[in-house]
């Protein structure tokens, strides 16, 4: 039996700098070092219950997906004929209500903290876009119920969507199309955008408080453009 004794490639060679894989890895490592991705400390100013609503929103989303997966196991008609199925439908509904409940409170809190300050505008933008895409996901969920509610919602909503021209290709009366948007495309969209949002939070950190003119913060580093700061 022979052992492969071929020399390994020197990791610091110039050739590696041109490699896509190495460049992506280095960019990810510098943007998200482990202690930033999974921190064990947070700034002392984070002393308010308002800060728990982000994680409550994310965990509500997790339960929306988990309960949705259970409903998917047995198909879209299951909950009409099975009391267990109906219970999981109830779990799915209330996890969606919880998702929006916590998300909106999280939005209010972040607004009043002006959480976009200090290069956190993309964090804010991805947050609002997650909200909007979640509304779309919830809407297609209502359309997928296969009961009176979905009949009414679809026949009403068609007027709004048809007026924009989108009704030519996005047909809310087409159960099959709406179900696939609800269980495939929109969950992927919500998870990707919400995931990007969480990564942005980890990248930039939680926004510091507004400065108090009477009492400056300890050893504060002026931001770009602040008088006396770096150009």
């Amino acid at each position, binding site marked *: 039996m022979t052992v492969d004794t071929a020399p390994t490639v020197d990791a610091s060679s110039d050739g590696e700098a041109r490699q896509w894989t190495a460049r992506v890895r280095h960019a990810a490592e510098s943007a998200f070092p482990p202690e930033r991705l999974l*921190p064990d*400390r947070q*700034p*002392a*100013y984070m*002393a308010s219950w*308002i800060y*728990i609503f982000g994680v409550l929103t*994310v*965990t*509500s989303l997790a339960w929306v997906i988990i*309960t949705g997966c259970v409903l998917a196991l047995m198909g879209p008609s299951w909950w009409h004929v099975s009391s267990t199925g*109906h219970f999981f439908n*109830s*779990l799915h509904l*209330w996890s969606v209500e919880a998702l*929006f409940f916590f998300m909106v409170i999280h939005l209010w*809190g972040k*607004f*009043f*903290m002006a959480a*976009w300050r*200090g290069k956190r505008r993309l964090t804010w*933008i991805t947050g*609002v876009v997650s909200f*909007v895409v979640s*509304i779309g996901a919830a809407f297609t969920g*209502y359309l997928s119920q296969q*009961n*009176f*509610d979905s009949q009414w919602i679809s*026949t*009403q909503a068609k007027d709004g969507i*048809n*007026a*924009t*021209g989108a*009704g*030519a*290709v996005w*047909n809310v*009366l087409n*159960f*099959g199309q709406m*179900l696939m948007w609800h269980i495939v495309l929109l969950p992927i969209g919500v998870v990707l955008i919400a995931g990007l949002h969480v990564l942005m939070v980890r990248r930039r*950190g939680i926004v*510091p*408080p*507004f*400065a108090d003119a*009477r*009492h400056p*913060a300890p050893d*504060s580093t002026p*931001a*770009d*453009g*602040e*008088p006396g700061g770096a*150009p």
Partner: protein
Amino acid sequence: MSPRRFNPDRDVSEWKGAYVPYDIIKEAVVALVAVAVLIVLLAVVLGSPDDPAVTLKRWSIADPVDFAQTAITELDGTSGTATYGPPYNATPDAAQHMGFFEPAQWFGVHQPVDTAKDFVIGPLRTLPDQFQVQRALNAYQGASPSQQAAWTAAYEKAVSRATEVNGRVVVPAGSYGPVGVIIGSLTAMSQTGGLDGTLLSEGQFYNTNYTKPLLFIADGSFLANIAQAQHLQGNQWGMMNETGNFPGQAWLWLYTMWYQVAPMNSSSNADLEVWVIMMVLTLGLIFLPFIPILRSIPRWTRVYRLIWRRHYHALAQAAPSAS
């Protein structure tokens, strides 16, 4: 190049102060368990609604007169669906517009529906052994357009005074040609459940597209009356509501509010107008960090003084005394 001026609504000095221990994984697990307990409690205590779907069968049995009144408008092309315009058909001037902005017209007809053929004649043609029906259809389709219009107009006027006797529609006598047999047969076909299946399948075995049966049902009053009783109509802020006493979609409050105010509440282009308003507002919320005055509201309202009160108190205590 001179440095950009510090703007407290856009910029912030990054934190160089104290840190406290924080266990992110424990926080996530605790939140996961807490939300699980919450949703299980809500599901056990409150459940979820499941009002049964309306079928053409249920409608035509419960209110055969309304069904017949709707069916004649499908045959003569005056129903809501028949005159809808794009994406269902090319009815002139039907698409909503705001000045030159007429996106429904630009996208055109991509979900074609011919109500006379798809909702009336086509389904009845699937009953070849019903000779009286087939003769009536042949007579109708063989007549001139003006003759067809005369028959359907007369029937539509008479059916407004129709009554129900033992589940059948009784229309005052008149000159309707074969139209009376056509609408009567369609009503009977619907009452057996045959119309639901025919409208859905369209000759295919598998189908998940309910466009045609839904459009037909929505053209009548039966579905709308149930919705009215459940406060789901547009002028009842229905977009926010759920059947029964369940909470609905409170987050749609602003979307439905615009339908209640002038000029949208009486406009034939209300859907497009409200959508444009909501797109502008949504873009405003997305790009709020770039919008002066709006992005200053958090600093002006000073709610942050409550959120970060411990931080400001600590700063005040750490500051050297003035003297």
